[in-house]
């Protein structure tokens, strides 16, 4: 299944890699490098999924998530971080309404399958 995906990461090599991986998975991908930019792009286009780095220069990933939800946007948001799992951040992200959490400390194949799992689970839930 292909989705319209927004990738938000302040590191170009990371977002480019995600971009290419997702394109390979037949997704329609847009990549941006900052939280403010993400909110801007989001207001112009509809995205099914947002892959959002938690640590961004300027506005943080959590702030972006909060703003998205304030706009009553129900896109599936998957948070990611260079840290491993962090219960504090997971709890906060869930509170703000994220669908899943990916650590960039996992192998790529695992990251991608986690990503697909979260998205389809969220979509299923949305349908119900």
């Amino acid at each position, binding site marked *: 299944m292909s989705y319209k995906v927004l990738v938000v990461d302040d*590191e170009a*090599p*990371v977002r480019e*890699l995600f971009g*290419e*991986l997702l394109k*390979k998975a037949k997704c329609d991908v847009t990549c941006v490098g900052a939280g403010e930019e993400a909110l801007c792009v989001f207001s112009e286009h509809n995205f099914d999924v947002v892959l959002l780095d938690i*640590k961004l220069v300027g506005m943080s990933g959590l702030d972006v998530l909060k703003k998205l939800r304030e706009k009553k946007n129900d896109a599936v948001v998957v948070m990611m*971080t*260079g*840290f*491993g*799992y*962090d*219960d*504090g951040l997971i709890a906060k992200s869930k509170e703000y309404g994220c669908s899943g959490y990916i*650590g*960039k*400390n996992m*192998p*790529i*194949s695992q*990251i991608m399958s986690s990503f697909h799992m979260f998205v389809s689970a969220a979509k299923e839930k949305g349908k119900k």
Partner: protein
Amino acid sequence: MKFFTKEAENLCNKLIDNANAFMFYLDNKGEITMCNKKSEDLTGLARKDILNKNWLDVLYGSDSADIKKQMFKSVMEDSVTYQRNNNFEGLFRDSSGRDKFISWNITPIASDRGHDGTLLIGNDLTLLKAKEASHKKNDDILSNIFASIKEYALYVTNLQGKITYYGMGSEVMFGWLKKEIIFKDVNILYPEESRNSLPFIFEQVNISGKYEVEIELVKKEGFSFPVTLTVSKFLNAEGKLKGYIFIAKDITERKKLEYQIFQAEKLAAIGQLAAGMAHEINNPIFVISGRAEMLLEGTDLSQEARKDIEIINSQADRIRKLVDSLLKFSRHNSKQLQEVNINDTIEGVLSLIGYHKLPSHEVEINKDFALDLRPVKADLNQLQEVFLNLFINAFQAMPNGGRLGIATKNINDKFVEIQVGDTGVGIDSKHLKDIFMPFFSTKKEGTGLGLPICYNIVKDYGGDMFVVTQLNKGTTFTVRLPFA
């Protein structure tokens, strides 16, 4: 005294008057017929008031019913009756009100008429007695001190370093019995490497009177242990240097604590560093692995290029795992506490071992689980991490197969104790103090984080972890976790 010439009599009186003793001559009825000048000091009476008085009334007063007076009287009677010398010692208050300790010598004088009289000569021993008393007091204090201290050892050597006194506490501290060690060279208590330090210590004591040092001493069984050693001069009564007094205080516990604090601080610093680094490292590694995997998915790679990229990928993976371990090591804030049954946890981890591609087929696993094992309160993932690390280490210690023993039990009504023992290569004793230190590893591919992670986790729950090992026989790790 008619048989003296006048000259002789004068000389004799002078001698008697100037003698440093109290002198009385009593007639056969006990009346004082002669006394010297010094006796005026004692009695506070002028000579004319002493003479012709009963000797006991002069020394004690006529109304005194002192028991000492009675005793002195009987001693005197004994001398008179049996015509023999006697001594009598006692306290007498002098004219200025000071108590004096006087030793009296009673000498009866007889002629052919029978008992003529008695010579009573008293020596003032007050100062001498005071000295003796102070010595005795010091001895008492010392023996009290020695009796009350257990973690101290006191021993004395002569100038040649031979043990001449091996005091209380020493037998307990060193394990040598007094009879085994007395007159042996004190170097017997020093580990080989510090034996040449004694002349230096003696020199320091000679210069500054005292020397204090933290040093390792050695027990009879050969174990060395840390002490603070205070060495001072041993002087004889004349103040001449006769040897050295050593007081050793066992500071093993303090050292242990210091080491733990040092460890904890070091670990905390590493943890902080790790958390800071993790993000910065994970991102580039993520990109490297991702790119490598994408390339490997392509079909147009030469075999050589594919092999190189696979190496890049596996090495990037290694870094990723290292960072992951570092994070696990440093992370304390993400615990989900629950009551955990350790037996179940261990079973779960054992089933994972296949997944970790360990040569478990060559290893026999013996489980000895207490069925009534109490639960502990902990984060399940962290406990799994602990046992996984211990099991992986055990398997790696047995490359040619062996036996992995896992036992659980409740101990002291307080802890769950888990023992993980292998029959592997063992740990070299020189490495033992380092195995819980981060980045210490004897394995080629080891990160040096496995055991430190375990240790941190166990300590974090108020538990303890230690190891017993024997080269080429095996190693047993013991983990203790408090009951939930």
